[in-house]
């Protein structure tokens, strides 16, 4: 409807346009002249008309009147008509078009609803497709849950465990007599992963312990003790504390913090570094205190001949956390065992096929009476900047 008035407006203007667009009138003139001018087309008189018209039009409206007479009433008569015809058509069209669109839209919806006669089998196929798509989305959502959402849940648990551990230490509660399942008793820092990398270590490697942070293999040595302090941690989701364990190289430091001490472990030499260790990488200052643990007087290297800084093993190889790794529990008397720390996580990432084993050896014990907190310790041991 709005188009009506607009369309009505222009027809009153054409005179004005005709005035303004002197040259533009030429085509109109031909249009106007329509049939008759075709006769005049080549004739000179037309030129006179054009030349004649503009001045008269400039003069004002009255000349228009005079202009018309030159093109007899039929020129004036059909002209406006011819203008109105197209415009009204244009003006009508929108209304018709809009109406048509609305009508078409509604009918289109009806048409879409109409093909409901899919038949029972058609509906069943469509429903099956919808269910399959939905299940696919649920699986995707589960992956998001595993990789990201569990991080949020675990971060909350880790934060609570960390606060409680701090409180326990501040209140000077005795810890070792009672390691409680799922309760934090130590803290692990890995300077290589950043100065703020720290997780509490819980007792036990059950699902609940590991949801909080790394878990201590029950029955294995405690921090600083001879034997093997075994710790498992998630690599994907649930905080993923051991996500970057494969980025560690030999001699990287792992700091275990207890109520009273910092224990500084260093990753043992890797398989390909064993030979020539003492003259090779082992001679570098950051590797101070790190030996191959091989006994040169025994052919093959002695009890620790299977111990490397990094190893990938089958999930069934529980002896990776034995006091002497990969050897029976009673291989060496306790006093002769090296103080090791073994971290385990899944391998490869996102898989449970194998386990990544990182083994490190105790190189230094720093009482908290000497170095109050981990930040100061870092500056002393020259860890991550």
């Amino acid at each position: 409807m709005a188009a009506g008035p607009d369309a009505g407006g222009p027809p009153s203007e054409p005179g004005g346009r005709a005035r303004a667009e002197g040259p533009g009138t030429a085509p109109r003139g031909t249009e106007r002249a329509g049939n008759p001018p075709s006769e005049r087309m080549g004739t000179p008189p037309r030129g006179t008309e054009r030349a004649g018209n503009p001045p008269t039009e400039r003069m004002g409206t009255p000349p228009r009147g005079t202009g018309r007479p030159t093109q007899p009433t039929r020129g004036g008569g059909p002209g406006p008509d011819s203008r109105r015809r197209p415009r009204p058509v244009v003006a009508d069209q929108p209304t018709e078009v809009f109406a048509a669109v609305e009508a078409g839209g509604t009918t289109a919806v009806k048409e879409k609803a109409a093909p409901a006669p899919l038949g029972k089998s058609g509906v069943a196929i469509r429903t099956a497709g919808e269910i399959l798509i939905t299940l696919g989305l649920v699986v995707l959502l589960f992956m998001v849950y595993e990789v990201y959402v569990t991080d949020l849940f675990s971060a909350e648990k880790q934060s609570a465990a960390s606060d409680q551990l701090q409180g326990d230490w501040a209140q000077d509660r005795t810890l070792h007599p009672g390691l409680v399942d799922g309760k934090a008793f130590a803290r692990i820092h890995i300077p290589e992963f950043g100065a703020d990398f720290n997780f509490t270590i819980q007792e036990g490697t059950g699902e609940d312990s590991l949801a909080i942070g790394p878990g201590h293999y029950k029955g294995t040595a405690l921090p600083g003790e001879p034997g093997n302090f075994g710790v498992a941690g998630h690599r994907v989701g649930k905080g993923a504390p051991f996500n970057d364990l494969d980025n560690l190289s030999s001699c990287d430091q792992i700091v275990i913090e207890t109520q009273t001490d910092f224990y500084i472990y260093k990753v043992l030499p890797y398989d390909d570094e064993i030979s020539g260790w003492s003259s090779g990488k082992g001679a570098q200052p950051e590797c101070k205190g790190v030996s191959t643990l091989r006994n040169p007087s025994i052919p093959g290297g002695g009890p620790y001949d299977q111990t490397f800084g990094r190893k990938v093993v089958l999930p069934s190889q529980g002896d990776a956390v034995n006091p002497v790794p990969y050897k029976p529990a009673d291989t060496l008397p306790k006093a002769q065992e090296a103080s090791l720390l073994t971290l385990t996580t899944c391998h490869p990432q996102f898989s449970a096929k194998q386990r990544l084993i990182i083994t490190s050896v105790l190189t230094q014990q720093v009482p908290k009476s000497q170095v109050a907190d981990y930040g100061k310790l870092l500056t002393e041991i020259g860890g991550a900047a």
Partner: protein
Amino acid sequence: MYAWIWRRLPGPFAAKLAIAVVLVLGIIALLMFVVFPWLDPLLPFNEVSVDN
């Protein structure tokens, strides 16, 4: 299935849309807080320890 559910939702379009969004969010919450935590330990993704 979804068309059938949509037709079953009461009210005008806006109300239907609001109810649909609430339903979808509810289902996601149910999955995230109940179903997935239950399912998680049953799957092998979280085995990080060696059999000790």
